[in-house]
């Protein structure tokens, strides 16, 4: 694998995470339990889609085949996506959506903090921009997880169920492969495994405040960030997200 190939894969992983999660979160638009939450979810989705434009825009530039961020978002099929599985799992109830958001935001904020020191100044610039937005995402998702976890009997039960369901998807964010090794060598991005300690400290503290118990299992579903095997949910998501380009190939507006 050349350095350019690895760099392209790394950028797809960043951009596909924000694209797929951004789309998932946008599915709440008009459906959230209260207006303020609806607005907050829509704003979070908007930030993530904005960040996607930067990551996939750079991916297209690095690949050098003239593909735009839109081309990469709308003209690839499921097996070419490189997001972690956590981003594509269905929303479930509001609690599960916010738990997924928290588990992702915690990783995202740490990852962006490291990427701000990337040897590639384009990556550092995107990370600097995105990290300001993600600080707000994390503040809100953490607050909500604590509020609901340490809330009523029902909200507590639902948050524990959400954590039990989502925890097996956390491990994938910290798995390393050849792409990561190449990025570490180039000083572009950190080894994902090196983020785990900081992540566990942060997540344990918040989930502790939320009176929730982290499942005692290190089993991790994987295959999203390498593209080896996505869940069956990604294809369904793409049929909605890419509907217009599938129905009217090449349509512009």
């Amino acid at each position: 694998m050349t350095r350019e190939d690895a760099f392209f894969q790394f950028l797809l992983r960043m951009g596909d995470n924000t694209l797929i999660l951004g789309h998932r979160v946008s599915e709440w638009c008009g459906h959230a339990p209260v207006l303020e939450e609806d607005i907050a979810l829509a704003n979070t989705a908007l930030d993530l889609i904005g960040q996607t434009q930067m990551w996939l825009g750079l991916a297209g530039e690095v690949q050098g085949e003239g593909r735009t961020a839109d081309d990469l978002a709308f003209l690839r099929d499921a097996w070419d996506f490189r997001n972690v599985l956590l981003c594509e799992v269905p929303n479930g109830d509001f609690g599960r959506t916010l738990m997924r958001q928290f588990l992702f935001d915690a990783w995202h904020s740490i990852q962006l903090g490291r990427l701000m020191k990337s040897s590639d100044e384009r990556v550092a610039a995107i990370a600097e921009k995105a990290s300001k937005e993600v600080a707000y995402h994390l503040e809100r998702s953490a607050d909500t997880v604590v509020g609901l976890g340490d809330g009523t009997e029902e909200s507590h039960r639902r948050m524990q169920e959400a954590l039990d369901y989502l925890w097996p998807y956390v491990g994938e964010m910290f798995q390393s492969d050849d792409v990561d090794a190449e990025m570490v060598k180039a000083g572009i991005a950190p080894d994902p495994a090196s983020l785990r300690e900081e992540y566990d400290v942060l997540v344990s503290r918040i989930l502790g405040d939320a009176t929730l118990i982290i499942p005692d299992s290190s089993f991790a579903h994987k295959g999203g960030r390498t593209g080896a095997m996505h869940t069956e949910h990604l294809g369904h998501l793409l049929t909605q997200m890419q509907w217009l380009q599938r129905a009217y190939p090449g349509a512009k507006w």
Partner: protein
Amino acid sequence: MSQVTTQPSTTWIWEWLDAVPDPEIPVISLVDLGIIRDVAWEGGTLVVTVTPTYSGCPATSVIAMDIETALRDRGITDLRLKTQISPAWTTDWLTEKGRTKLEEYGIAPPQPAGGPEKCPRCGSKDVTRVSQFGSTPCKAHWRCQDCLEPFDYFKCI
């Protein structure tokens, strides 16, 4: 010296851009918002460097169009807009004039403490946060405990 007579000075261009309103908060100008980072002539081409506020802000493309329209109306035809994301936009770049206008309009200006200093309507300091997110990406949603009015707070970033 023919160039001097055909090219407006950058001081003039800054003034013209200061007359272009932000599409979502029209009481402040693009210059007040702090997103115009540089105006420079490169030969016969005017290069305007713009920094986006939030990466997904839907106003970004409207802003680019408004800049183009305003400058073309002033006779500048050879124009290039450059997007710069680093250093990232910060609310520290809002002008004093912009902060005052925001408050007069009913939007509390950003404060280093992370919350509004006072209610922009009645001036009460008894304010409470409803949500970190508001009607546009750059604002949060607050409420005054005295006059009970909800209001927007331009959040620090």
